[in-house]
């Protein structure tokens, strides 16, 4: 178990910058998830930590020790690859016991057998030990890859999208297993994914990566409730957070948000640190939106529009409403909505997000507001 620290980690491939000066600190035993779309630089980060790639600048510290120039086999790091990377000509048992035959992690044959069997039990694959990788299903291969990583001691566990090639149902099962495994092992884990649901479910903390830049690091609550910019805001949530461009203007009782087409006006609480006329974007998550009926309630904001399309998502509906020139998505249980209906969308004022129109960064609505998460 050890801490992990990335200082100014930067990686360039020729003229392409894969990672821009990243700083990150993981505590001992922390389960960290790096979230980002493909090409964001997640795998590059993992490879730099593992020592499979040399950073162009910056450094990696494991357990307080500078790892610059240290070969992978000296770093005491374990990694599960996205494509499993199982040795094709070896049986599952041989795959999992392979690390235990290296000089570094060598144990007696008896001890190796015990460990492999124990890990196989934990992962529910003891019956597969004599099979070859080509005879295994995706889920089984993924467990073997995990097993290989767990049989030997490691300071840091690196997991590169291990669940991305599994079907949805299996993904959910494995997610739960991974989390419980993580708790059991207590090894500092660095998990990489493009699926925000995995990130929210697994991570002690989440880092959002985009084009090599870390946009925000925080607990799942913080990332969800207080996204640092529009990218982070849209990265989590399906459908994405609704973003309405507009400006902050003066209005009754303080600042008011007015959308570009003038259709939407929302009073902004408190004293937002934004000057008159600044371009801003208003964000509101579909989950926080509802179809209103009856009287407007206090501390809520309403918008009127007509239903564009309704999609059934199991028990809920995704209703897209046209408000002015905007399409707003809402998740609701109200089964009565039909395309063309005139409806009122309603959301609690506290769930409102505000972002600077140019920098896309989050704007606090109340001065001196405490960090809730």
């Amino acid at each position, binding site marked *: *178990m050890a801490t992990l620290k990335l200082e100014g980690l930067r990686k360039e491939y020729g003229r392409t910058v894969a990672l821009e000066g990243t700083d990150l600190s993981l505590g001992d035993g922390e389960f960290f998830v790096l979230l980002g779309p493909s090409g964001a630089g997640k795998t590059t980060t993992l490879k730099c930590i593992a020592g499979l790639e040399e950073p162009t600048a910056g450094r990696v510290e494991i357990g307080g020790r500078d790892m610059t120039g*240290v070969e992978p086999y000296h770093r005491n790091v374990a990694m599960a690859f996205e494509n499993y990377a199982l040795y094709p000509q070896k049986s599952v048992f041989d795959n999992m016991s392979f690390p235990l035959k290296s000089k570094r992690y060598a144990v007696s044959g008896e001890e190796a057998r015990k460990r492999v069997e124990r890990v196989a039990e934990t992962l529910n694959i003891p019956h597969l030990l004599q099979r070859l990788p080509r005879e295994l299903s995706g889920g089984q291969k993924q467990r073997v890859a995990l097993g290989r990583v767990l049989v030997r001691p490691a300071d840091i566990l690196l997991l590169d999208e291990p669940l991305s090639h599994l079907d949805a149902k299996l993904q959910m099962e494995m997610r739960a297993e991974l989390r419980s495994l993580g708790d059991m092992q207590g090894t500092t884990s660095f998990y990489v994914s493009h699926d925000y649901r995995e990130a929210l479910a697994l991570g002690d903390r989440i880092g959002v990566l985009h084009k090599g830049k870390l946009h925000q690091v925080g607990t799942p609550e913080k990332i969800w409730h207080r996204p640092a910019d529009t990218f982070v805001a849209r990265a989590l949530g399906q459908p994405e957070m609704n973003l309405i461009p507009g400006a902050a203007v003066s209005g009754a009782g303080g600042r008011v948000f007015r959308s570009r087409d003038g259709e939407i006006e929302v009073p902004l609480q408190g004293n937002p640190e934004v000057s008159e006329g600044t371009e801003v974007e208003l964000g509101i998550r579909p989950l926080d939106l509802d179809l209103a009926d009856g009287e407007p309630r206090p501390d809520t904001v309403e918008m009127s529009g007509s239903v564009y399309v309704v999609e059934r998502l199991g028990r809920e509906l995704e209703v897209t409403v046209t408000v002015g020139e905007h399409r707003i998505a809402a998740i609701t249980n109200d089964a009565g909505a039909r395309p063309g209906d005139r409806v009122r969308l309603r959301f609690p004022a506290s769930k409102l997000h505000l972002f600077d129109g140019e920098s896309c960064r989050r704007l606090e609505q109340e001065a001196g507001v405490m960090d809730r998460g």
Partner: protein
Amino acid sequence: MSATTADDRAPKKVSSGRRALRPYLLTLPALLLTIGILYPFGLGVFYTFFDYSASNPQPGFIGLENYTNMFASSDFWSSALVTFEYAIGTTVIETMLGVAVALLLYRGSLVSGVLEKVLILPLMIAPVIATIMWNLMLQPSIGVVNYLLSPFGLGGIEWTDSPGLALFSMIMIDVWVFTPFVAILALAGMRSLPRDPFEAASVDGAGYWYTFRRLMLPMLWPYILVAVIFRFMDSLKMFDIIYALTQGGPGDSTMVLQVRAYQDAILFTSFSQGLAYMVVLWAIVFGITRILVGVLGRAQARAAGAS
């Protein structure tokens, strides 16, 4: 599974400089070998600017005289002509025949299963040996070929002794040896093609030849092109077959460039002169290879986009 911390002693470090050195160390022996081969090559080019021969072991510098003499001599041009005739003849015939054979095997028949296994046989026989075989068969009076042709009234053909036919015979031997090369590549290409376009064409009612011309051939192009490049380049420098059959005769009618160089440099020991022939041949081959490889690259890219 208790995880232990990293080594208590500080982990060994490898400087990035040393790491960058690795590929160079791995390729060092190859580099040395390459230099070892380039040396005689460079020496050869060097010699062409002198009048080096066995009778003149202390050669003097004569600049481009070897080349000017060579380009002025009809010997060179007739050699060049024969070389190109040979190369074009063999490549064209082998390509067409090879693709045809591949089609036959691909289409499949009662005999194709068994016969495909021996497709490679002629290719594995050294061209010299093949020439010996055919030489035996083509002997005018006692060779079996004329014997088999005599019922058709074609017996008594002087396969190797008449200038026109000698070249034809050599081309035929080359075709015999190397057609399997084209066929194997084309067959592999055919088998690697995706099914869907063909099924769609079949549903649309496309005929056999139309499908072949418009659909299969364009997709096979990279494979065929590889075969063509290899065959053409190799035919330009063919030595074995010519030497073993007629040594360039009758007269000079089959004196391809490399055989001429052999004659000049080894038999007549005019090293510089023979080398001049080789430099020109090498330049031709080099130039054409560059062009064809470029064409191949584009063809492969196009085929990759189509699939």
